[in-house]
């Protein structure tokens, strides 16, 4: 209930701020709208990404570096077992030879197969649509890795040190993109999006798919976008344009 009231209030404030005509205050309002630390996330939001493949350069890996730095995904020089939460895919059409590039990561499905198959419920979807692994109850069976249609999950194959305080990860559990939940809870965008916008080509956009006034929702309404493997009917939170 409180979540609902708070979310309504945030929209109200946002409207008021818009009326007041804050020019430079856009970022300020965003921060002001942050949920308080005590407040639980609610299903009124659904966080998602819109990725424009036409802006994504083949040789650019800004999003990948951004993610690796944020979560300290340092590898062990063993590419077969090292974790990758986000990776760049280069696509070549077999008929037309058209080449495109895009980042692939957890698609934060509304109906995630990883959540379906997890025996302990460690794979779960937060009310605001972010799909996570509760590493406290993950037993490391890897069934979710088998079940993910996007190859988005990694299993931690060795003991880790130097984890970030906001991104716990450890041996014997499965992990994947958290949509930078620690940043989202502070109303910041995920590290990959920030890296793409500052060091890359601005191909990624983050926002609330449920808020019709959000930039991402407007963009999605205005131009066609697609889900990867839409045939599975998973209703992904990550959508692509111009593949």
């Amino acid at each position: 209930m409180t979540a609902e009231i708070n979310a309504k209030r945030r929209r109200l404030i946002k409207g008021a701020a818009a009326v007041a005509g804050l020019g430079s205050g856009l970022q300020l309002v965003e921060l002001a709208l942050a949920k308080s630390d005590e407040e639980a996330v609610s299903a009124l939001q659904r966080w998602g990404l819109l990725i424009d493949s036409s802006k994504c350069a083949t040789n650019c890996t800004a999003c990948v570096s951004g993610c690796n730095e944020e979560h300290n995904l340092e590898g062990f020089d063993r590419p077969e077992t090292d974790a990758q939460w986000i990776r760049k895919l280069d696509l070549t059409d077999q008929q037309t030879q058209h080449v495109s590039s895009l980042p692939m990561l957890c698609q934060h499905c509304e109906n995630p197969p990883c959540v379906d198959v997890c025996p302990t419920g460690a794979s779960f979807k937060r009310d605001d649509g972010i799909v996570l692994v509760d590493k406290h109850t993950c037993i490391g069976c890897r069934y979710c890795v088998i079940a993910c249609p996007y190859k988005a999950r990694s299993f931690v194959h060795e003991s880790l040190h130097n984890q970030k305080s906001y991104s716990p990860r450890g041996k014997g559990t499965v992990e994947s993109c958290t949509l930078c939940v620690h940043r989202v809870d502070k109303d910041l965008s995920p590290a990959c999006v920030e890296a793409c916008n500052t060091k890359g080509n601005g191909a990624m956009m983050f926002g609330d798919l449920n808020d019709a006034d959000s930039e991402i929702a407007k963009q999605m309404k205005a131009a066609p976008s697609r889900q990867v493997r839409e045939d599975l009917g998973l209703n992904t939170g990550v959508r692509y344009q111009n593949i």
Partner: protein
Amino acid sequence: MSTQFKTIKQGQKTYWLWVGVLGLIALVGYGAAHHMETEGHWVSGMNNQVVWGLPHVFAIFLILAASGALNIASLSSVFTKLEYKPWARLSALLAICLLIGGLVILVLDLGRPERLIVAMTHYNFKSIFAWNIFLYTGFVLVAVVYLCTMFERSLNKWTPASGLFAFIWRFVLTAGTGSIFGFIVARQFFDAAIMVPIFIVLSLIVGKAMFILTSLVVTRLGGSYISLSLLNRLIKLLGLFVAAELFLVAVFHFTNLYATEHHGVEHFILLSGGGYTLLFWIGQMIAGGFLPLYLIFGAKREINLARIILVCCLVVIGALSQLYVTIIGGQAYPQVLFPGKDVSSTFYDGVVAHYSPALPELLLGLGGISLSLLLVFFAIRILPFLPDQRFTSQSTS
């Protein structure tokens, strides 16, 4: 007519030799699991592309063999084939022990095996694994109850009922095991409900083979014997199931071959998959299918013991090959995210994943099999599982 039962003879050197060897392999298997757990799974051949490896092949083999091994008991109490009744106890015992061996492998291969308690207290009931936790532990319970009704004379009247219940339970259990793969939409080679009957028939095959092999060993130790005519009936029944399995596997592949979207994975398994293709044709099809069929139904008269043992070994090799091709081949073939596009990445998209089993995986798998047999050996020494033919009329065999 009632059958007398006995424990095995005391003070045999061969018994302790078996126990010693099996115990050693089981211990080494545990050491291997411990090594993989403390170092992390990177020391295994498994990786982020092929997350289930050789341990899972062995574990699922044992779980299938467990449910199949119970069928000798079912033949007597559900289908009232009384000639199998003397072997019902051993059949149920073997079923329990094989299942425990399989489960131990699965648990020891978990990333966090010490969190078994979490798996026992947190359930997501949409997960097939969660169903299987109940199906597997329930199976042990059901089989123990079934055994009790066989052992305790006053409970004998309940044997047919509990036998029927166990029979139904084992079908559901194997259906659950097949569903682990059959219900996975993400992989080209899984996602087929026919996996369920394929696994059920495979369980009937390997269950019988494991029963015959085990019973030959333990009867020799126990001073009783299993008659060749009974083995002939069993092996012919096994032959029918081998034929049925070939049919189901053919249906599976023909269905895939008809649909263009599955041509890639079929090409991989049937033609271009290297080791997987070899295992499919030589292991699964010839060793596990056509050769046993020839050896069983090509025989003019009674099939001799050597041939029976050969058939059992062949179908075991065939089943292991089939599980290897299904589980590991199914993961090695790349997931198709963008049909009609060639895909490349740093994460092995669009290429066949590399997997070569590491020694610890093999040792863990063999350790699980040894543990199963070790449990059988302990049980037959403590309780009367083996028929005592001195008191049984020859007509029963």
